[in-house]
């Protein structure tokens, strides 16, 4: 067990540090960085410019194969780069889905010439990708999707609706899973494609969240044509392809949530409450959880660097972080007392970071797998407990109950 860098790691860290010093602004802790959904036109341009710079310097895809612009390096180097980048205020949030989920899925299922066409522009941030999985009727039951694709010559014709599509309005391409056969059980009737988000028949509407942000979209499909050549995996194998994508999602480095426990400690200090035993115990609990997650990720990265496949145990991160964020936000307001509800920039403590998190954190417990789904995943796939009793399993999808009526 060694927490220090190996000589190779130290050399890489120095290289990353040099690159960042020359190209980015050091972060000030006080003000949290903008998130996707708050991105206006300027911010998009900044994201793209930074991504190009990062890709050209070889820091955008550290563990990818060299032929796609990667370094074929250990995931540990990825962690090191992230540790260093964390100290800088770099514009992020536009490429995580494309590079973390879409392109890795393409790498597994697309043709070589398609990879030659799509991977590098995505890596350099020239083309943005989104992921079209969720549907209104689906929710936690992802495979219950109803968007149809019907074969018509060399094309498929898509009709239906997707929802919770992050960044759809900023995207050039998307990956999509659709139902190609409603008369078989639900997991068996799906197929998977990638498509041009400017295709005729696609309409994108932003979803207004309670926090005021609009990270997500509804995407409507009316007779959208997709060439069969853009199918990923066999017809009817869409669920298996989706699982690849979701597995890659779990590998993605988790978002840094603010306020974190350090922000709470700072708030308590500023309010002269850090001597209070109740405040201290909460800070200690949250700090221990934060550190536990950090070192759990290090354990995973060590396993990955030895060629092991990470398992569903990574569901821990979001499960712990989302509730922690909501609880820290709410508790921060409690510490502020009667003025805790004020969000005006000039009056609110800590730039209203706690108030914003109070309003945005409910989505963290739901989006990308709800607390309940994550606990099920851990129970079933890690602990080996039985699946929930399924009433929909062996029925044709078209005959599964969908409501009381």
């Amino acid at each position, binding site marked *: 067990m060694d927490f220090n860098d190996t000589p190779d790691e130290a050399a890489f860290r120095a290289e990353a540090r040099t690159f960042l010093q020359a190209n980015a602004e050091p972060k000030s802790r006080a003000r949290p960085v903008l998130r996707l959904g708050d991105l206006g036109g300027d911010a998009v341009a900044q994201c793209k410019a930074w991504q190009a710079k990062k890709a050209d310097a070889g820091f955008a895809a550290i563990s990818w194969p060299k032929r796609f612009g990667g370094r074929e390096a250990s995931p540990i180097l990825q962690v090191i780069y992230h540790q260093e980048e964390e100290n800088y205020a770099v514009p992020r949030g536009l490429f995580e889905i494309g590079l973390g989920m879409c392109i890795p899925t393409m790498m597994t299922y697309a043709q070589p010439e398609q990879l030659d066409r799509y991977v590098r522009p995505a890596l350099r941030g020239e083309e943005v990708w989104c992921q079209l999985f*969720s549907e*209104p009727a*689906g*929710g*936690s*039951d992802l495979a*219950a999707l109803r968007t149809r694709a019907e074969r018509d010559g060399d094309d498929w014709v898509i009709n239906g609706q997707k*929802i*919770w599509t992050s960044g759809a309005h900023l995207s050039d391409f998307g990956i999509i899973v659709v139902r190609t056969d409603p008369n078989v059980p639900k997991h068996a009737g799906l197929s998977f494609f990638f498509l041009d988000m400017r295709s005729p028949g696609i309409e994108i509407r932003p*979803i*207004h*969240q*309670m*926090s*005021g942000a609009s990270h997500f979209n509804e995407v409507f499909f009316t007779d959208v044509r997709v060439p069969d050549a853009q199918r990923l995996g066999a017809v009817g194998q869409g669920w298996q392809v989706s699982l690849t994508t979701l597995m890659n999602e779990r590998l993605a480095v988790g978002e840094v949530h603010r306020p974190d426990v350090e922000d709470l400690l700072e708030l308590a200090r500023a*309010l002269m409450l850090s001597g*209070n035993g*109740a405040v201290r115990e909460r800070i200690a609990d949250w700090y221990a959880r934060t550190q536990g997650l950090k070192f759990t990720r290090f354990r995973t990265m060590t396993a990955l660097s030895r060629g092991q496949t990470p398992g569903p145990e990574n569901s821990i991160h979001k499960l712990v972080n989302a509730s922690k964020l*909501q609880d820290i936000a*709410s508790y921060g*307001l*409690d*510490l*502020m*007392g*009667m*003025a*805790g*509800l*004020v*969000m*005006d920039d000039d*009056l609110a*403590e800590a730039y209203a970071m706690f*108030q914003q998190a*109070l*309003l945005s954190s*409910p*989505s963290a*417990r*739901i*989006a990308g797998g*709800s*607390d*309940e789904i994550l*606990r*099920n995943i851990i129970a079933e796939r890690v602990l080996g407990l039985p699946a*929930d009793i*399924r*009433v*929909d399993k062996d*029925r044709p999808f078209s005959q*599964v*109950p*969908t*409501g*009381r009526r």
Partner: protein
Amino acid sequence: MNFDFSDDLKQLRDQARRFLAEQSPPKVVRQVLEGGEPYAVALWQAMAEMGWLGAAIPEQYGGAGLGYEGLCVLAEELGRAVAPVPFASSAYLAAEALLLAGSDAQKRRLLPKLADGSAVGCFALAEGTGNPDPAHVSVRATGGRLTGSKWPVMDGDIAGFAVVVARDDGGETALFLADLAADGVSRRKLTTVDPSRDHARIDFAGAAAERLGARTGWPLVQRLLERAAILVAFEQVGGAQAALEMARDYALERYAFGRPIGSFQAIKHKLADVYVAIELARSNAYYGAWALSADAAELPLAAATARVSATEAFHLAAKENIQTHGGIGFTWDVDCHLYYRRSKQLALALGSAPWWKHRLVELLEMRNAA
């Protein structure tokens, strides 16, 4: 012993529930939330006409004389409807301040106006970050003139007058009446986590102030907060109950994996825990209602207990209502966030839970020492 509301009051409750379902549906709340109007004016007028605004104001001062139990019943229903009206400020806090501390002349002058809705009052205590504490009172009332800033003041931007906690000429904490339309008063509407309820910052620069009654000292403020805490506990219980019912209904309607999501124990047990929290809070609120009505010696402890329970129950119910709804639960268009916002607004309005918990134990210690 009879630990329930009377049949008359249950009738009032049913009537209020029907009325508010019609007059304060989510659409009306959103009108205020989205900035359409500062509060639900038409609803407020209708409430005035029904005598709700003076529910606990004695008839001699123009009130309905329903007593505090009546006020509690109304508070629960207003909480259930997340009603966007200055009821807590005007009908609990300002009216109670007058009743507790005002001279007879002051009561005669202002209570009838609060009761008929021609005046809206508010209570100005906070001076920025912090919980209620005499050490945090720095606004001064010197020679009948107020100087300093109060924020946040609930309903401070729509009230006509404020009951202001300030230091008198002798440096003692006391209550003062201030006309908010007078010279030397400037107001600024604040942005908060719950825009469905008005909040303001009020700056006094030598504004005229009239002393409310003759009493001084922090215990008066404490007493006012305790009485209001019981009423707010009913609002919180009402809001929590509405959020639980919304979650329950959705859990029955929404299907996943071919079955209603309410058939999964993850949802069932979550909602059972919410139910338990609400019932405990409701029972503690009932005890508070009795203490308020009977002006019992147990009131301070009953108030702290009711506040602690109700704050926990509403926050839990509101956040788990969103969670039960899944994705649509955190969208603007679905009503879950109305309860979530209000739960935190009410949690902070009279001082936050840690402060009340500290107070509760202090009262227990005093009782045990006695």
